[in-house]
């Protein structure tokens, strides 16, 4: 449910490149999901099973797809999300058994509830709850004078405030719509008395908020559970045991505290998960800044290098063909121009079913984005060769291949190198988005920083990314100078 609060995501695989056969687990792009996955990973580690954790791969849709495709073997999900967003065919009143059955037909198993429910709730200041004796939502009926500060979404959803008011028969009360984060401030400062919240919000701990019990069970249940591939659990009994080990492992209060530790105290998810499991002392030491930077740089260069190399290998010949066959060339350029207009995120999502999660779809997307500038500049470079020179080359009786290599490409080399350089600089920037689908690189700290609201973490990715872009720019200017024949740099003489 926090997907609504935090829009964007982060991080790829953990630093360790684990063995080929170890089960892979994923997490959604918010703190709670990452903590849950780290708890499973560390717990399995204690029992000698290595798991590969792909951090913050995206929203529910991406994780669900990745699970179905077998890119990951398990991830933490919420029953409410399953019923409402992922299993559309499930009847509304389907029970837990029907849910499990529906999942089984897809090859997916559902673990026992982890022990907490991340759902909508109403909260009041603890001292107000104490003084008025508020424990449940029903208790609010008798307090018509309380001032409500509700998030816009909650106020407008049919299953939000309007339904809640009816279900509990609340009398009309002073009501203000406000941003969810601001609502916490308003509550703390006493400007409002009741706010809506998610039951695992970190602020509940920080602001000493009493969460009122949904005694009429109005809100749908969003119990945290592990979803896993049945084949993976069958293949590896230790993996199945680790998943079973998670049953009722995480009480609501513990989850709140852990969210607070990460979001408010800025501690790392892994560290928080380790403390929870009581193995904090056995934790491997975190990477230092420089080794992180080095790893991100290598990952980033890999994304950019492979995609750019492939785009040159394909874009150059296609550009040459397109320059020769104008009509076909226009069509090809049109296609790549359309590809260019696809937003990166959409492109990644299209590519996930084909290539899975991680570096491969990111490289494929960057490759597609690189094609246009390389092809277009190749076509432009070749097309701008003066016709008399082309004719002179033809009149010499040299075959096409020799003309292309000895005359046409050298004359077009400036434009071509310029196109590759443009593609490279764009790639360096776009590659940061690869972190959204677990491709790593400089985008990893940027997205982590956004998620945690930590500017230094954002800069850890943003500064090297900008520096790399400048470096690439300079590099290609140098290459252009190196490859441009001297005769083309001379001013013409009368």
């Amino acid at each position, binding site marked *: 449910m926090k997907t609504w609060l935090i829009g964007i995501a982060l991080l790829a695989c953990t630093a360790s490149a684990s063995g080929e056969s170890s089960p892979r687990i994923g997490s959604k792009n918010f703190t709670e999901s990452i903590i849950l996955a780290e708890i499973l990973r560390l717990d399995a580690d204690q029992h000698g099973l290595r798991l590969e954790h792909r951090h913050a791969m995206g929203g529910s849709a991406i994780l669900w797809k990745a699970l179905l495709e077998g890119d990951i073997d398990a991830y933490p999900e919420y029953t409410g999300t399953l019923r409402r967003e992922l299993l559309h065919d499930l009847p509304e009143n389907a029970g837990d058994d029907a849910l499990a059955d529906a999942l089984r037909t897809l090859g997916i198993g559902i673990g026992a509830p982890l022990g907490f429910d991340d759902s909508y709730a109403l909260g009041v200041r603890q001292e107000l709850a104490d003084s008025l004796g508020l424990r449940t939502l029903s208790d609010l009926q008798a307090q018509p004078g309380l001032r409500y500060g509700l998030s816009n979404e909650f106020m407008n959803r049919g299953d939000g405030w309007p339904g809640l008011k009816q279900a509990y028969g609340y009398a009309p009360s002073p009501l203000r719509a406000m941003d969810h984060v601001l609502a916490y401030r308003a509550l703390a400062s006493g400007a409002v008395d009741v706010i809506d919240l998610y039951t695992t919000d970190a602020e509940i701990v920080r602001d000493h908020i009493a969460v009122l019990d949904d005694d009429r069970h109005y809100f749908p249940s969003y119990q945290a559970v592990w979803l896993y591939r049945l084949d993976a659990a069958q293949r590896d009994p230790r993996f199945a045991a680790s998943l079973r080990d998670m049953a009722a492992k995480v009480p609501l209060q513990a989850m709140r505290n852990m969210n607070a530790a990460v979001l408010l105290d800025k501690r790392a998810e892994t560290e928080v998960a380790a403390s929870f499991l009581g193995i904090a002392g056995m934790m491997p030491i975190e990477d230092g800044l420089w080794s992180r930077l080095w790893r991100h740089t290598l990952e980033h260069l890999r994304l950019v290098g492979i995609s750019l190399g492939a785009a040159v290998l394909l874009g150059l010949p296609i550009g040459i063909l397109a320059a020769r066959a104008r009509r076909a060339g226009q069509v090809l350029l049109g296609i790549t121009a359309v590809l260019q207009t696809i937003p990166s995120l959409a492109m990644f999502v299209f590519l996930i079913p084909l290539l899975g999660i991680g570096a491969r779809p990111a490289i494929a997307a960057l490759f597609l984005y690189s094609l246009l500038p390389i092809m277009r500049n190749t076509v432009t470079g070749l097309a701008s060769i003066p016709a*008399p*020179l082309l*004719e*002179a*080359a*033809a*009149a*010499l*009786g*040299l*075959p096409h291949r*020799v003309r292309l290599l*000895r*005359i046409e490409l*050298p*004359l077009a080399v400036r434009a071509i190198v310029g196109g590759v350089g443009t593609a490279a600089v764009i790639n360096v920037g776009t590659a940061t988005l690869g972190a959204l689908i677990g491709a790593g690189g400089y985008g990893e700290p940027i997205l982590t920083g956004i998620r945690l609201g930590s500017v230094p973490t954002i800069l850890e990715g943003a500064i090297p990314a900008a520096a790399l872009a400048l470096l690439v720019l300079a590099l290609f200017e140098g290459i252009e100078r190196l490859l441009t*024949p*001297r*005769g*083309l740099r*001379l*001013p*013409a*003489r*009368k």
Partner: protein
Amino acid sequence: MAGTPLRRPRGTPLFSLEKVSKHYAGTDAGVVALNQVSLRFEPGTVTALIGTSGSGKSTLLRMLIGLDRPDGGRVLVGGKPLLPDEHLALRRRVGYVTQDGGLFPHLTARDNLALLPRHLGWNPERIDARARELAARMQLPPELLRRYPAELSGGQRQRVAVMRALMSSPDALLLDEPLGALDPVVRFDLQEQLRQVFATYANTVVLVTHDLAEAAFLASRLVLIHDGSVVQDGTPEDFMARPADDFVRRFTGAQRRLPQA
């Protein structure tokens, strides 16, 4: 195959045109470039195609090596119709020089000369020896061969262009306004050198120019083309003494008046 002349029976012209027509695309029957032109070009003869601009003379020249295709009629090479897959082989045996020289700006003069010979498998020594020989003939200081076209004067560039056309001792030399872009003094010098080259060169030469005096100076046979047709075909003396019609009279007259103006 380098150095082997095109096989042709004795007495057969290298190039001949049979009722060749050409219309410019997009103008249906509009502009006629060439209208049923028949011509033969004999070995050992320097022929000048003359006429006003747009008369179709350049088109005719380009057809000889397949750079342009006739809409009607046939181009015969060595007595046989020119097939598209023979274009490359033919062009290697024919030197072609255009008004702007067509030198490749990214290559030095020497590398421009070496393009075709290298492809024909010549070793560098042979290429350089031939380049020095031609430089002497065209009165070009050999050290200039190390320069790029942008570092050469217009006259030097045209000399290199002629040298490039002559590198592999071609069976024919085709020149399309080779001196058209040069100033009068340079042009005067180069006309002299071209005449000497043509004199020592026993093969077919076809020259396109709009300058009657230049044509008469360089060629033994003039062909005047007007509105796509051959108006007169003969020696320079024929043109002066027996102009075929009023247009020839006006053409020769216009040229003769120029020096007096």
